[in-house]
């Protein structure tokens, strides 16, 4: 009987995903504890870490697929689904609560028509909760991608959103 070749069969994945993953793993896989830097690199390139890329990441780093999946699912920051064009992180922590974050959070959800972990139907914004942005002296705070905003009110949020939409 002919033996199967000793390689793991990988599912077909889109070429851009494969290229992005291999670009990152080639650069970073020899770092000690490389998995988090690799996942950051992939998420930076693609906006998320596609589930379909897990076997390839695992093979390149010589880990099991369970290891890779376990790490992606453990950390709030890593996403398995493509986000909206911009990600809005709303701080839910105590300092912001003391300055009206609960009202602000309700307002933003209503204005965008989404709950946390969801993306608006036009694909423009994803909404995520965050527990402290270190902007506690200027509460309440949100971050849009990596742009921090402080002393935010529902009115100022609306003004920003209107300016965004031009």
């Amino acid at each position, binding site marked *: 009987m002919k033996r199967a070749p000793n390689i793991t069969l990988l599912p077909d994945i889109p070429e851009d995903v494969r290229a992005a993953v291999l670009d990152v793993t080639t650069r970073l896989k020899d770092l000690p504890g490389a998995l988090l830097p690799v996942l*950051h690199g992939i998420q930076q390139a693609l906006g998320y870490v596609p589930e379909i890329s897990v076997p390839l990441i695992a093979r390149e780093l010589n880990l099991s697929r369970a*290891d890779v999946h376990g790490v992606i699912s*453990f*950390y709030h*920051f890593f996403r398995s689904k493509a986000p909206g064009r911009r990600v809005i992180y709303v701080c839910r*922590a*105590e300092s912001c609560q003391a*300055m009206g974050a609960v009202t602000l959070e309700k307002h933003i959800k209503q204005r965008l028509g989404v709950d946390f972990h969801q993306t608006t139907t036009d694909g423009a914004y994803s909404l995520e909760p965050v527990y402290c942005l270190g902007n506690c*002296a200027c*509460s309440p705070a949100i971050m849009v991608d990596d742009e921090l905003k402080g002393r935010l009110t529902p009115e100022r949020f609306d003004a920003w959103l209107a300016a965004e939409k031009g």
Partner: protein
Amino acid sequence: MSITVYVPRDASALSLGAEAVAEAISAEAKQCGADVHIVRNGSRGLYWLEPMVEVETPAGRYAYGPVQLEDVSALFEADFLHAGKHALGLGPTEDIAYLKSQQRLTFARTGIVDPRSLDDYRAHDGYRGLEAALRMSSADIVNVVTDAGLRGRGGAAFPAGIKWKTCLDANADQKYIVCNADEGDSGTYADRMIMEGDPFVLIEGMTIAGLAVGATHGYIYLRVEYPHAQRSLEAAIAAAETEGYLGDDVRGSGKAFHLEVRMAAGAYICGEETSLLESLEGKRGQVRFKPPLPAIQGLFGKPTVINNVVTLASVPIVLDKGAAFYRDFGMGKSRGTLPIQLAGNLKRPGLVERAFGVTLRELIEGYADGTASGRPVRAIQVGGPLGAYIPISQLDTPIDYEAFIAIGGMLGHGGIVVFDDSVDMAAQARYAMEFCAIESCGKCTPCRIGSVRGVEVIDRMVAGDAAERERNEVLLRDLCQTMLCGSLCALGGMAPFPVLSALDHFHEDFSGAAEKAAT
């Protein structure tokens, strides 16, 4: 001659429009032909005045704030470049009372220097601690840190010198210095301010730690919510490498020290030291059993010193000025100074570095001048989401590790969040349990399951009648006891603090909706 204008690049200042202000000043200066050199400094920590613009004059720096984009042309009209009078004028920066009364040791340079300039760092006494350390033996460096009485500023308050001694005494071919920059507690931003405003002091502190224990590699584990700090640290590390402060041969000593920044990924638990090490190793951030201590078997199984940003950033001044200088600040077993972060509902939130012993009242009524809303203070959470809620009857408690333990709280990383009388303390207690449930690493049952049950029990208390509330309060206190005694780390082990303190000091907020309607 060109005039130097300071516009902070601190993330909080940017969040209030500092970038637009800097651009406008630059454009306006060009238009009126003024020779202006803009330095993007860190923040002085007077956050109600941010964006705070300073101008260098022969008589020292003059401050204006809070400056918005639309104020810039008026500032030019008022000739602020020569300290001209304007409604936003604050006078000489050093004379601002909030700043003048502080004892800034760790934050001596933050907000003053250009964080991208190694020359500026050296011109402000930078790298003097390292120069001193390079003339000393490892054991002597550890002794100085021990004698200074420096305790871990991340929250656990463990003596840094003892940790270092354990690591120094461990035999290994490789040791590591890890900086815990996963500043996740709400109400805290001191780490961020240092990393953005004076990154070289952290690099210097870590290098000294490396010399002290014989470690040649350091990692800064930085939270992903701090992209500004990442840029600042990476620029500073590159500059330090170029000038031989990092690398294979630190300042010609023949000793190596390499440093890199690693980004976290949004898990609060990774601020716990063993979980942080797991994460650095590329794994799920699950807490390890102790022993073995990280100082003996830490990162990749090697002896590792793991300290918080403020702890490591306090090391250079200890080495420069000596143990006695640092130890002379403070009270009891809490020696030196603590950068206290005032946050939440306050008129003047900001950073106050003072020797241990200053009281909550001085901080909240003095420095911060009461609430932003103008309503009375009702509850104060000290030490982040796992810290107790303190009622105003305890406002005279001094900032001291032991004094806070005595009132059933903890100082933690020195964050103080103030709530006015509109706060619903049952909702805050529920949030504490909810947060623990979201952020639990899942390894131990009291934390993983207890926090979920905690939310449910509080919901039943608030929804039910008096009898239901009493039954559930017994259950909640019992659950808290289990979590306090049975959790593997501080997350499950301290999440009951805010819950129990809310029950003890603000019991009336737990009255059921039915009862509230009846009264």
